[in-house]
């Protein structure tokens, strides 16, 4: 065991502190030190995407980052999409309605990757969704319903963004999806 380092991280909008070994992965830090077990570990070598979280709004594989690397950064995990654990984010709702999960082990990573995908490309084609999710493995669903759910979520948002256009905040660029937040915005 080596010396512990103190880190400060914003996790799902809340400032958190941790004392970690330099070798502690971000995934282990989130799961074991923060108690956020929704981030799953499927391979620990950067291929399966189950451990995907957003750091400063960008998807990362938390198994490949060290906790010390996110010092002073903003992390969003699946728990942050539904702070009360009951109310579903529109993307979660779309996964539910389209049966986009079976065992659900890949789901947190799929949700966060999709969140980033739809933020960057609010109206993707099926091919773009397939390419965008290609770094996240699902062993159960054959991807059919995951792709459908993401396309449906995009549709839903395109619709709500247009009907609610007048109420969008000033800094939202046209066509952006104001309701896909980072961790800070959720808090």
């Amino acid at each position: 065991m080596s010396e512990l380092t103190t880190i400060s991280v914003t996790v799902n909008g809340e400032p958190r502190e941790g004392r970690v070994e330099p070798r502690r992965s971000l995934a282990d830090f989130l799961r074991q030190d923060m108690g956020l077990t929704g981030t799953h570990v499927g391979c620990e070598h950067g291929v399966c995407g189950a451990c995907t979280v957003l750091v400063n709004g960008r998807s990362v594989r938390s198994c490949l980052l060290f906790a010390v690397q996110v010092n002073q950064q903003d992390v969003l995990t699946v728990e942050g999409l539904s702070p009360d654990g009951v109310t579903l984010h529109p993307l979660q709702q779309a996964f539910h309605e389209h049966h986009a999960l079976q065992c659900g082990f890949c789901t947190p990573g799929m949700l966060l990757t999709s969140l980033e995908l739809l933020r960057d490309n609010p109206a993707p084609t099926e091919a773009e969704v397939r390419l965008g999710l290609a770094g996240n493995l699902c062993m159960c669903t054959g991807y059919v319903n995951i792709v459908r759910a993401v396309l449906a979520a995009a549709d839903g948002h395109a619709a709500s963004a247009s009907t609610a256009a007048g109420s969008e905040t000033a800094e939202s660029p046209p066509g952006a999806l104001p309701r896909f937040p980072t961790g800070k915005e959720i808090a």
Partner: protein
Amino acid sequence: MSATSHATTLGTNWVGQPLPRKEDGPLLTGRDRFLDDIGLLGMAHVAILRSPYAHARILRVDASAAAALPSVLAVLTGEEVVRVSRPQRGRIPLPVSPQVYALAHDKVVYVGQPVAAVAAIDRATAEDALDLIEVEYEPLPAVVTPEGAMAPDAPILFEEVGSNILWHDTFPYGDVDGAFERADRVVRERVTIHRYLSTPLETFGSIAQFDASTQTMTIWGSAHQPGQEINNVAAALGLSPGQVRMIVPPMGGGFGNKTRPIYHILIALLARKLAGRPVKWVEDRRESLLALCHAADGIMEMEAAIQDDGTILGLKFRNIENEGAGIDFAGRHNLLMLSNIVNCYRVPAVSYEGYSVVTNCCPVIANRGIGKPFMCLAVERMVDAVARETGLDRVEVRQRNFIQPDQFPYDTPSGQTYDSGDYPEMLRKALALLDYDQLLVDQEAARAAGRLVGIGIACGVEPAGSNLSYGMLISGPSQLLSGQGEAARVRMEPDGSATVYTGGIESGQGHSTALSQIVADELGLRPDQIRIVATFDSHSHPYTQTSGNYSNKFNGHDTAAAIGAAGKVREKLLARAARMLEVAAEDLELAAGRITVRGAPDRSLPIAQVAARAYWSLNDEAPDDEPGLEALHYYRNPRTRAPDAQRRLPVQMGFSAAAHVALVEIDPETFEIEVRRYGVVHDCGREINPMIVEGQVHGATVHGIAAALLEEFVYDDDGQLLTTSFMDYLKPSSADVPMIETDHLETLSPWTPLGTKGIGEGGAIVAPAAIASAVEDALKPLGITVSGLPITPTRLWRLASQGGKRYPI
């Protein structure tokens, strides 16, 4: 069997509806609790030292330096395991069974075999300690192919068996010789299948805690068959099954793979050493690919006796199954293949010769469809070969040989009774789904332009529910294990809602939603009023030795157990209401939360009111009544039986089916294979929840496609596994596969309460055959036939550049 002939007595409001799943909430919000999410105070963490050799004698193990490391709590070696535990036997007792312990002691027989284990205050420390364990090995020659293992000079894995052939037998069914004498010609094929695995995204794990004062072992573990696991652990540790409590948290996928009792035994032994302290081990991905389990590779030689019009009179099979270095599932692939040995076809005579051979590869366990994907591939390749040899169209050959709709229930030569189906219509529908006639026109144009475009066609039955008596084909009639069933308990709560406990296990198939729909119909409630306690706990859940989530048994056996228990509760409820309303129970109706006198809608009671009295008002009871509204039902399939004098028996109990049509295109330069369209028409009888059924079809089919084109465990000649990460063991991503287009038939099973049949394995059984067929069709301009999987661009390119005509080389 027509789609409407099965009348159910239930209200059947909820069964059949595509309700969103009740399982989803915690999974979507990250509030689920998988095994690795469980933490207990004082928990020790385990790392396992594994063999770097495929075959070696262990000369010395010195773990003293590891044991001396601060923060290491316990170390276990093979020598101690032999002293403090009893060896395992295979699930089917073999005539001569090797002695297998949780750790290797005198020798290792596969790379990755556990040799020592360390429990420490955290996983990283335990892994550090492994580096301090010294093991001296004397390497022995290894053998990785089953044919190599059968050679006279092959190195022997288990000296006590005396041979690498664990089992060999031949089953002749019907007049096989006569069929071959009458044949116009005989078609021969040799088909091979490789090692692959469904690789659940959550790896295998075990947590154990021992209470020394009561000598009770609690295990939280990955498990498909809790009854069997409890027995395995109890037997190894010398405990009563009643002293082992098994809890199975929701599993992040299973597919049959999470059936490895040695790991539960190993962790339990460490827990016993550390009496009181919980001990946890979760496999990492490398360990999983290396040493959890693989699906068996095999070599099938076949002969078909046929008439010139394509009619198949008889089939002969000779299969060599590579069991790896394991005994747990020895023989099972072979025997389960008797269930789909004639697939969808009216073949009156078959013979099957099977070999179970051990090699220095990872042990074989169940994987989605176990054995049946290979049998389906073999038969479908043979049917295509028959078409080739006779010059007939492959659709026509299938239509000619199909079991016809009016022949159900249909007895196959090996003793299966197919319950229902309409295979001609199923294939017609599948061809229509992808507009086959148009595909043929497009294909011709593409070929004229030099493109390699192929259409694959494959049909297959999907057996469901096992008759575990099939082991008697190896171990004889004295085998204790027979039949199959499931247990369920339903409790109507005093508020009128209901809680269900079963011996089944949840690993993603939506069983809780499906059971809620079924029980809601039975009790006149809504599915949201039904609670399924999905985390199995042997202290609260009823179970039998055959309980669990395997054999595709949910639709036939779990549903019957739940309906049985709910039916008993319903009877109790109606009897009580009858007394309260002063009418006969037969005159009551149960629907929408109320019990009503038939024909008198104003005379009714809310279910909740009757339920409350059942628990609160004990003065209500007649002398022989019992209070409460709870019932237990142990269901056993009444049609299971031991092998008959001809050694026929129903190996499996229900038969869904599917027809797959695939469109592939192969790059003529790189031989890269793209699956451009994929259609499935399936028939699993009544669909409890069509949305869940469709999801099962998608997932299984994509797994079958990937098994045919991407996934492959590769060993070198020394028995080193070369594919130990997801960078070399290729799983399909969303960009590798198309949308799966589906349609369905519903021919109801006459033997299950709701007319249901199995769903979940079929896609994985039929898709490899459809892909092989599609690739062969695409390569037609090059004259290349396909007789083995997987089909990879490199190998295809090599074959084509050498002018070869038969894949694989």
